[in-house]
């Protein structure tokens, strides 16, 4: 039998889901009590609904996960943040970066902001150029030069020499990379060796500007500062290093014999050879200091002098350690570092001094004894440790202990070898003296008889220098202007936002399709 009550039948579906109104619900319940057909249909609907709910999930197709990972990786790669790399995403680790919107860069707002940013960037950069350009103009002394060309030029030359001297000192400090830091610091000053009392360098000063630069560089003795205006020649007595002998070789030889005996007592031939090597090092180390020279020359033809200095190096069994050409403005400076056999240092320096006008000359002592004794002390300790270990190995009974001790011994042996290598290095360093020569082209050559034309030429050269270095200054300008740029940027963004708020028309609310609704 079939029920023709379509009204009730239309409600059955809602009734199953319990979304009927109270009246509809009662109507349905009232009807199904008497109508078997509708009761049947309701039961069937209920069966369908529960069956549909209980349908099992389908298995994922093959390659689904791989495809998804590839797409996710592509998504991450397309993402603006490079820190979430493709590999990270593909392996499932790494940070999850949630982009705001896929097509953010297409929005008008972004284009507007980008344009603003670009505009204020260019404005600030151009401003920066003008600013630094002017700074450079003043710095170079070009401005003063129009008032008093010679005076200004002298000043700039003096500044340059300061840097040259500073360079030289820096280099002095860096000659011995093997030295401990304390040594380098102690010996880095030009006049620092006089503090030791072992060596006082001849210090020739014939240029008041050079003297000034010494003081500026913070290394000049205050006594020298008093002489600054006199432009006098300061010559200090040169005493060859006689002082620091008192605590050198005896100490070592006292230390050595008991060591040697112990080594012999172990009947360890390997150790014996090491001890012999080390003895040789100790004997050679009677003089554990090295003298390094510094010389500043002013000459017209810097390259010719460079050649001559190089030839000096080869004549005194040495070599050129460094050769650098520093071109500053329209001037060429050469920094040379040559190494000569330490016994030839004075002769070599005298010879170099003849090549040009000497503006600075110094000899400083680099004391290697501290590094040497440090190594010695460590060697003694390590040897003692080695002995006690050997003794313990001899006394040890079980294999486990012996193995542990032998491992310990191995470490000590390696340490001893390192120290011996260090000692050898020190003795090697001692054999060569380094002379750093700074050769500056003579800016004042013929300046005494400078005509108006020469002065003009000089001014023009300076101007050319300014032009040449202009690209560099542009870059510097970029750097300086960055902060200003940041401020301008923030202000511009604020301005933009305010304008955006003010000018925005009430937009029609068009809900976006394809977007997950909230």
């Amino acid at each position, binding site marked *: 039998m079939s029920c023709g009550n379509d009204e009730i*039948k*239309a409600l*059955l*579906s*809602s009734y*199953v*889901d319990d*979304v009927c109104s109270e009246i509809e619900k009662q109507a349905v319940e009232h009807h199904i009590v008497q109508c078997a057909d509708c009761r049947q*249909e309701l039961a*069937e*609907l209920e069966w*369908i*609904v529960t*069956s*549909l*709910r*209980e*349908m*099992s*999930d*389908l*298995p*994922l*197709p093959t390659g*689904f*996960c791989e*495809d*998804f990972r590839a*797409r*996710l990786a592509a*998504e991450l790669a397309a993402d603006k943040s490079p820190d979430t790399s493709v590999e*990270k*995403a593909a392996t*499932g*680790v*790494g*940070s*999850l*970066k*949630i*982009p705001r919107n*896929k097509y953010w860069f297409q929005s008008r707002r972004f284009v507007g902001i980008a344009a603003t940013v670009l505009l204020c960037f260019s404005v600030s950069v151009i401003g920066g150029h003008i600013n630094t350009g002017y700074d450079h103009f003043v710095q170079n002394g070009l401005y003063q030069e129009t008032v008093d060309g010679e005076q200004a030029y002298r000043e700039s030359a003096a500044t340059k020499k300061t840097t040259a001297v500073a360079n030289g000192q820096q280099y002095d400090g860096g000659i011995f990379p093997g030295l401990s830091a304390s040594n380098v610091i102690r010996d880095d000053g030009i006049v620092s060796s006089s503090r030791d009392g072992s060596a006082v360098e001849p210090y020739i000063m014939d240029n008041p500007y050079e003297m000034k630069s010494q003081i500026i560089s913070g290394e000049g003795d205050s006594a020298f500062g008093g002489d600054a205006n006199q432009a006098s020649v300061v010559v200090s007595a040169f005493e060859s290093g006689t002082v620091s002998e008192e605590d050198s070789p005896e100490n070592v030889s006292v230390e050595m014999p008991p060591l040697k005996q112990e080594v012999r007592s172990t009947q360890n031939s390997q150790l014996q050879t090491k001890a012999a090597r080390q003895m040789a090092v100790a004997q050679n180390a009677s003089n554990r200091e090295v003298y390094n020279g510094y010389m500043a020359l002013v000459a017209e033809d810097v390259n010719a002098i460079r050649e001559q200095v190089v030839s000096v190096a080869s004549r005194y069994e040495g070599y050129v350690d460094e050769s650098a050409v520093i071109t500053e403005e329209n001037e060429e400076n050469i920094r040379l570092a040559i190494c000569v056999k330490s016994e030839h240092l004075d002769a070599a320096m005298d010879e170099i001094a003849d090549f040009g006008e000497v503006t600075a000359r110094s000899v400083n002592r680099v004391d290697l004894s501290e590094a040497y004794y440090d190594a010695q002390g460590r060697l003694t300790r390590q040897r003692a440790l080695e002995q006690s270990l050997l003794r313990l190995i001899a006394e040890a009974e079980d294999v486990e202990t012996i193995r542990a001790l032998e491992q310990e011994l191995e470490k000590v042996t390696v340490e001893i070898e390192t120290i011996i290598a260090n000692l050898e290095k020190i003795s090697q360093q001692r054999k060569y003296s380094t002379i750093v020569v700074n050769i500056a082209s003579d800016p004042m050559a013929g300046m005494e008889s400078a005509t108006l034309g020469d002065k003009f030429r000089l001014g023009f050269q300076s101007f050319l220098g300014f032009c040449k270095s202009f690209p560099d200054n542009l870059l510097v300008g970029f750097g300086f202007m960055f902060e200003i740029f940041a401020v301008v940027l923030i202000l511009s963004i604020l301005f933009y936002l305010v304008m955006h708020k003010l000018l925005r028309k009430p937009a029609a609310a068009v809900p976006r399709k*394809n*977007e*997950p*609704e*909230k």
Partner: protein
Amino acid sequence: MPSCGIEKELALVEKAKAGDMAAFEQIVGAHQQKIYTVAFRILENGEDAADVAQETLIRIYRSLASFKGDSSLSTWIYRITVNLCKDALRKRGHLFTQSLDEPISEENESLYPQLADDAPLPEEQYEQQELKDYLEKFIAGLSPDYRMVVVMREQMELSYEEISQALNISLGTVKSRLNRARKYLRESILKDREQECMRLRLKNERRG
């Protein structure tokens, strides 16, 4: 529905939001099969379903930050899935092009002829697969609009309100579509059973 509790799910979401890829992987692992299944039942095409499911997961990844937790995570995910399914159907030109009054899909008219001759007999089918999975082909017989409502209601377990919001249709339309779809399903199942009885009878006669 994934078995993990709501608190656990929210904790996972928070972790994933903070950049924990493992947490995101866990969310994906918990939902991907369901997403695929649902997409398959709406689209009735494995390739499209896989595509939509993957796209859904990508969308989840992309917009997880905007998930506020005012609905359950699965509801949120299903909304994305449904939207993408709608897009896919629109691309195919199937959605809203057919008469909304006719729940039967034209493309699946061949459903019954498919069962002819060499097809496994229904009794064997019952043995082979669960009775519930037997329903799969009847869902396929619905037109996409109806399929979507059924899947959303029955498999995603969304409320009438949620369905009406997601599909941008009135509550009444949701009710009527569900009503029609269920009626259709019931009728086709009954028809299928009749056919099956006939078949059995014929088979027995042939054998007998």
